């Protein structure tokens, strides 16, 4: 069997821009165009443009099904608003982290991680058979969840100049679109869902459009953004940006072996409603946690990496899940699972870097907050 990585509609654009490509979640994506450092800086200081078309989108029309599979109570989410939530298994492990968009026609659009989109779809569909047994409610669950990720492209416009840039290309009034809200409108004459969300710690938008319009929208944003100092930014910068913002990466910081309590994602849980994994999570809370995810900074110049051991008094006590240089802060940072006794900000432990216990100190998440949050 030959496994071929999928390409987004913007693949040729990346190649023309000289991107170094990588395979991520089964997709060929730009790792960097020029330099991760420069792309990171552009997003913090001006504006960066991201191809996020590898992300998955699942249309879950059945509200009770959506309520069953996500950890958060969506009933109070008004159309046009967005919430971050977990998709858990029966043991409370995190199958994926998702953004749920409340759609005016009813139900939700779930934006899910690229490598999980087909697994998430199968998982939700399997449960739709249970929650919607009657043909009137969608037969075998056939119509209650649709995997539409490959029909849509997604372009991120992130940074302090992102809102102004997108505003110049649309007649829609963007000032009223709050953080974690969305509208439908035209950007550069392309029909889009304009979503004030992101994975960088900066203000900005994520624009969903049909695949056939992706190149046109991408080029229009790049051209109009020249005056703002726009740079196309790859997954390398996306990772260093989200780490500074303390955002978890599924597959690195959270996965099916970790639960939302350990991951510090309590705020995504509505334990007073029924959802898959609720009982296991409630029991885990009762028992108390054996490990929690913390942010830390290195006190020397060594760089923590995913999988490195956390050591205390010569013993392995935890594991680094993400780590890198923080270009914005000027020191090296990471996230790790450690025993709750080592979780207080100011606590010191070691990170085993090639056999040496490099000193690190727990700091509150996020590492970086943008200066003037909306």
């Amino acid at each position, binding site marked *: 069997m030959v496994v071929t990585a999928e390409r987004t509609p913007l693949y040729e654009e990346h190649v023309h821009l000289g991107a170094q490509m990588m395979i991520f979640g089964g997709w060929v994506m730009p790792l960097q165009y020029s330099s991760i450092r420069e792309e990171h800086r552009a997003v913090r200081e001006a504006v960066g443009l991201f191809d996020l078309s590898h992300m998955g989108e699942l249309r879950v029309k059945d509200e009770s099904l959506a309520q069953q599979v996500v950890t958060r109570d969506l009933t109070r989410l008004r159309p046009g608003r967005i919430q971050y939530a977990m998709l858990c298994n029966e043991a409370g492990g995190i199958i994926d982290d998702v953004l749920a968009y409340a759609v005016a026609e009813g139900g939700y659009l779930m934006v899910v991680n690229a490598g999980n989109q087909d697994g998430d779809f199968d998982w939700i569909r399997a449960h739709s058979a249970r929650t919607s047994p009657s043909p009137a409610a969608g037969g075998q669950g056939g119509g209650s969840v649709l995997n539409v990720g490959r029909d849509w492209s997604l372009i991120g416009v992130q940074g302090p100049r992102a809102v102004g840039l997108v505003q110049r290309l649309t007649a829609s009034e963007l000032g009223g679109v709050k953080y974690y809200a969305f509208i439908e409108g035209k950007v550069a004459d392309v029909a889009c869902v304009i979503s004030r969300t992101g994975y960088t710690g900066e203000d900005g938008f994520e624009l969903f459009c049909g695949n056939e319009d992706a190149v046109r929208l991408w080029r229009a944003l790049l051209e109009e953004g020249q005056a703002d100092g726009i740079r196309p930014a790859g997954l390398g910068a996306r990772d260093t940006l989200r780490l500074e913002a303390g955002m978890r990466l599924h597959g690195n910081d959270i996965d099916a072996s970790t639960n939302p309590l350990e991951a510090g994602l309590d705020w995504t849980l509505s334990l007073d409603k029924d959802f898959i994994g609720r009982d296991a999570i409630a029991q885990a809370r009762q028992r108390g946690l054996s490990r929690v995810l913390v942010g830390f900074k290195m006190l020397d110049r*060594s760089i923590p990496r995913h999988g490195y051991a956390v050591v205390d008094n010569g013993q392995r006590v935890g594991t680094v899940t993400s780590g890198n240089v923080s270009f914005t802060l000027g020191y090296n940072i990471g996230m790790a699972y450690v025993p709750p006794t080592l979780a207080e900000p100011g606590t010191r432990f070691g990170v085993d870097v090639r056999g040496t216990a490099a000193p690190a100190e727990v700091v509150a998440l996020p590492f970086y907050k943008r200066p003037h949050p909306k």
Partner: protein
Amino acid sequence: MPDHSGLRFAETHEWVKKDGDSAIVGISEYAQSQLGDVIYLELPTIGQQLDAGARLGVIESVKAASDLYSPVTGEVSEVNQDLKDHPEYVNEDPYGKGWVIKLRGVKDNPKLLDQNAYDTFVQGQAGS
């Protein structure tokens, strides 16, 4: 194109430029482009004896940590202190201010490649 005719390359992508029995060592243009933004180097101490092919240190980019190997046998006489605060020199000028270490008492290593042979080797790698 600057003249790199005096350089010899290891298949592990370090270069060496000999001057009598001393030598300067760095990493190749191809290696820096593959690593991407260099953010940290772990370098040997002065006086350390290195054999050809022995690990001399670690270079870390945003993407990953990689081992560096000495292309020749010799004793470390100097390490590039500027790289502590400016690891990006390795990206900007790998054959100049991005040099990594200097060695003395250097022995020749006949296995090293000249620029043409190295370029051919790299093309073979990129195509694989």
